[in-house]
């Protein structure tokens, strides 16, 4: 879809945005208006004739007096009151306000009544939501619904977990009102994979690009998303903060931590009091362990607005970095009380609970996160970890697989999968996973070692030795902390070569054993055996030459020697035709 390069007539675009801003703000769709206005601001330099946007006066609308009053109530968050006064009005604005305020009232009450985050909501409120839904359905079936109401209907359906219906409704909503960004966002949250995105029929509109880029980003198709954003920037939106923020997120997803941080810095220079997406930045700082920056960010955010979800997340991350998990949880909880649909707080809270070894709470948090957004691989992975602790390997497998499915090129999921298979004694699957992990770079350097141990376990000694050799080669110089593992590798290799009578190698590895505390003794013993054998060998060589077996051994040892210089990944193993 990137190929359709269409050049935008920025004037037309701007006029359209202007009109849409008016429509959205009249309906109290604050976030939609904000998005449009920001975009509009990035087109500051585009001149348009002010007369074209002939302010279609609200006074033309039927029932203006009622609308004006109801809108005030709405703005003051007196939703029930607004709903009451707009109930029978014929005005389209009033109609929308009526349903919207009813919906918001239910949501507000849900949040207000929230005593425990993990409690399911009051069934009474849910039934109210259902009746709201059926009313909207009646209107929809009577074909008496405009794009904004469709958006609302879609949102309600989504809230009721009727995703397929919501998808179709939102699809028609974006056809009706392409410039209402809220509909696009809701639509994006319903698209679970790329195939679904392709099946959508979307209006041919410039905003579609924003949508597609957004969805790509959500689906971790970061490169593609970045391309679109670059293109949009060239088309004239280059000064848009939104584009900048989105590309920062793309870098974050790609683990280009430094670039991402730099992009965020740029963004913050342009718009220092912008809190949106700051939680992502705080994640980045956390990963880089830049505690000073994080502290500064936390203070700044809490000075700007204490009670924003983003602020709470930033502070939570800050405490987490300092190891004060209890406090971190408190802040994540606060974020969730402000907005229970706030995805990253759920996931982060799950992590904190894991740190505190509260698996039960962790599971709840992760599940909520997945409920909010099924594509959050971190939550899936977290679930896998918790179930690993709970010793439920099948669940564990399932969750890891979900995570792996969302991030197919991430070695950590593969390692986790491999470990789980190992626990289930499915060696072949496990080997495959480690193998694959190795191919994808093996972030934690565990794959080879695991492979080696596993080969050892199933008595494929040659493979094991090869893997160990590779492991040692990679890790010997880098003075890593896992001395124990390395010494173990040396020990194994020494023994292995000893067994095969390759005394030179055995000697070499045994010698290396000496430099580690854990294997010193054994190294000495090995060295002794090697020297002994050497002595024997010299004496017995001729005698045993007649014996076929020795010659065989020599030959095979030669093979092995060749082998040991091969990269470990030439190993072959035949996977059993699917386990059970």
């Amino acid at each position: 879809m990137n190929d359709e390069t269409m050049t935008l007539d920025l004037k037309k675009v701007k006029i359209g945005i202007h009109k849409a801003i008016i429509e959205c703000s009249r309906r109290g769709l604050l976030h939609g208006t904000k998005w449009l206005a920001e975009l509009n601001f990035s087109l500051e330099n585009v001149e348009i004739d002010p007369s074209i946007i002939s302010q279609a006066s609200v006074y033309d609308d039927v029932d203006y007096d009622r609308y004006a009053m109801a809108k005030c109530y709405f703005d003051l968050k007196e939703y029930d009151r607004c709903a009451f006064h707009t109930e029978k009005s014929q005005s389209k604005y009033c109609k929308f306000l009526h349903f919207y305020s009813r919906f918001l009232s239910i949501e507000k009450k849900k949040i207000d009544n929230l005593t425990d985050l993990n409690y399911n909501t009051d069934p009474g409120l849910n039934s109210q939501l259902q009746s709201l839904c059926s009313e909207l359905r009646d209107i929809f079936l009577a074909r008496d619904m405009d794009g904004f109401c469709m958006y609302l209907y879609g949102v309600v359906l989504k809230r009721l977990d009727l995703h397929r219906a919501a998808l179709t409704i939102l699809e028609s909503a974006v056809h009706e009102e392409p410039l209402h960004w809220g509909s696009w966002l809701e639509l994006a949250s319903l698209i679970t994979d790329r195939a679904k995105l392709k099946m959508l029929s979307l209006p041919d509109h410039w905003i579609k690009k924003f949508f597609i880029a957004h969805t790509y980003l959500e689906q971790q198709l970061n490169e593609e998303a970045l391309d679109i954003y670059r293109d949009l920037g060239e088309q004239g939106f280059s000064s848009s903060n939104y584009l900048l923020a989105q590309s920062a997120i793309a870098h974050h997803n790609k683990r280009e931590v430094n670039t991402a941080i730099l992009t965020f810095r740029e963004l913050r220079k342009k718009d220092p009091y912008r809190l949106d997406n700051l939680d992502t930045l705080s994640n980045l700082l956390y990963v880089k362990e830049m505690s000073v920056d994080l502290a500064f960010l936390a203070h700044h955010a809490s000075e700007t607005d204490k009670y924003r979800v983003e602020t709470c997340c930033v502070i939570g991350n800050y405490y987490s970095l300092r190891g004060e998990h209890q406090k971190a949880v408190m802040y994540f909880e606060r974020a969730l009380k402000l907005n229970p649909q706030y995805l990253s707080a759920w996931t982060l809270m799950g992590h904190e609970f894991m740190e505190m070894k509260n698996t039960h709470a962790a599971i709840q948090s992760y599940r909520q996160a997945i409920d909010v957004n099924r594509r959050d691989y971190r939550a899936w992975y977290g679930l896998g970890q918790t179930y690993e602790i709970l010793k439920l390997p099948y669940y564990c497998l399932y969750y890891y697989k979900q995570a792996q499915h969302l991030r197919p090129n991430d070695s950590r999921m593969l390692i986790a999968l491999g470990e789980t298979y190992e626990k289930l004694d499915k060696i072949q699957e496990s080997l495959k996973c480690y193998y694959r992990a190795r191919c994808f770079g093996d972030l934690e350097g565990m794959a080879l070692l695991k492979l080696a141990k596993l080969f050892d376990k199933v008595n494929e000694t040659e493979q094991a030795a090869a893997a160990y050799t590779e492991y040692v080669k990679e890790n010997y110089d880098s003075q890593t902390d896992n001395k124990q593992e390395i010494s173990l590798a040396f020990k194994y290799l020494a023994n292995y070569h000893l067994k095969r009578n390759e005394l030179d190698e055995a000697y070499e590895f045994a010698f290396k054993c000496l430099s580690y505390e854990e294997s010193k003794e054994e190294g000495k013993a090995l060295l002794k055996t090697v020297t002994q054998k050497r002595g024997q060998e010299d004496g017995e060589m001729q005698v045993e030459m007649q014996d076929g077996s020795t010659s065989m051994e020599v030959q095979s040892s030669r093979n092995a020697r060749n082998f040991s210089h091969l990269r470990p990944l030439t190993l072959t193993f035949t996977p059993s035709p699917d386990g059970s």
Partner: protein
Amino acid sequence: MAGENFVFEEETKNIDINIDEYRKLVRTYIDLHLYNSALFWADKVVSLSGGEPSDIYWLAHCMFLMKQYHRASLLIKNKGLDKTNKLCQYLAARCLLEAKELSEALAIVSGGDPNNTSFSAPIMSSPVDESFNMEGTSILSCNLQSALLYLKGQIYEALDNRGLACDCYKQALHEDVHCYNAFEALVKHQMLSASEEKELLESLPRGEDDKLVSYIYESLLNKYQDVPLALPASLHQSLEDNLDMTVAKAERLFYACSYRECFRITEEVLKKDPYHTSCLPIHISCLVELKMTNKLFYLAHDLVDLQPESAVSWFAVGCYYYLIGKSDPARRYLGKATSLDRLFGPAWLAYGHSFASENEHDQAMAAYFKASQLMKGCHLPLLYIGLECGLTNNIDLAEKFFSQAQNIAPDDPFVIHERGVVAFQNRRYNEAEKLFESALAKVRVIYESKKVIAEKWEPLLNNLGHTYRKLHKYEEALDFHKQALMLSPLNPSTLSCIGFVQALLGWNVEAVETFHKALGQRRDNSFSTTMLNYVMEQLMEETPPFAGADSSSQEQLVGDLLNTVGGTSKSFKLKTLDGQSSSGAGAGGSGGAWMGEETPEASRSVPATFVSPSPGQSRSIDEVEMQDSFQDENTS
């Protein structure tokens, strides 16, 4: 008799007294509701006229209005007028009824012979003064005759002889079509079944001007049986706004389970007339259905303050307590309501519900039995009895009651649905399918104009799903469960069902997802948990170890060691916890034996509707059963 001047010859003076003046005075005082004055002067008039029957009638009438029933009847009887004057006979009987002297009243109505049970004969044969059309009363003979018959019906009803009472009412209605009392007595107390009601309506004499009558009656009738959402074609525009008509419409909506719309209408009606008697029970039932406790609380207080003698007031109080889950006080007040009006069916049913909600099946049945005796023409008590039987695992008995209920209301989808459930429980799945389908067809007709059927029918759809599953038509089953989910989203048991069918179809990926959702809604459901464990295992056995595992051949992997980006993401800071197993299992965690000892949890929402209460018998088929069947189906 007009204008007689009595000349009193006394010692001193003869005064010309115009009795007519005093007679008029009596009427005036009656009109002004100054009964004492009326009584005083009526007494004087009687003396002056020397016991003219009409004057005695008026005197008795005043006494009646003063609630001096015994006195009035004695007066008439002493003069022997109950035998000669029809109007007096009626009044005397009426007084005795009010005084609860039932046998005496019956004797008077039957012309002295209490055993004479034929209707018209005694009155016709009795030597009644034909000039009953007394001065000042413009009562037609047919009206009076009808009133007498109605009275007789009332007496029989009070004597618990409801069959005879019913006949009397019918006769009364035949005599006088406009006698709404008789009509109401027949309809309100559910004496007639739907077909009988129709018959009655057709048999009524129709004159030219009676179009209106039959239209009105027709609107008030048949609310339950066919539940046509639209009223019969309107006859007159201005009648549309008549409150009775509106209430009838509301009642229809109520039976169609559109509680919200119904509530909107009843609220409107009560705004205009806060104590509209026929509207109140519906309104209260709506409040119960919509769980508006606060409004019900206020309404009940209001009613009890204003009309402590009315059964509806106490019904409201009882309902309030029922709604907030306090069964004891609920029963107490519902009992009070029934003692105030023994024929108040809704209160009896609610009384039954209050037991049923606490699983006190026997007592609930007793209450329903009582209701069924009182409401002969209503199938609901029978339906509820059947339900209770079903819940106590007495399926055969339940079936009997359901078929009785169906005799009364052959087209009621609820009854058909319940019969379907029985068939299902008896493993006659084909029959169950037919029954459910026909119920669904009936339901669809009801909601034809709205396209969407009401939420209340979610169990029917689910049960259809169960049935199709049993018949191994999994695709259909899935379809119905999904429809059910549309009606009642996020319903955990529907989700479990969907997951189950998906598992049977071998769609393990979807099944796992659905079971997850189900457990998200109801965490402690052991069926979903065990199923999830099972399906999860299956799924993990059959899927490749990781996405794309098959596509990548070994050779391709060789040497392809990507140097990937460094840096650990925040999400992976937790790798070190392995091994420290914590106690307790996760949401879906607690494994259990596959054949766990499930305790059956009858998912039955207690029907909480009272005005000839409605449906709600959502007996969805038990999940334990699902489990059994899963075993069957899996092994086969």
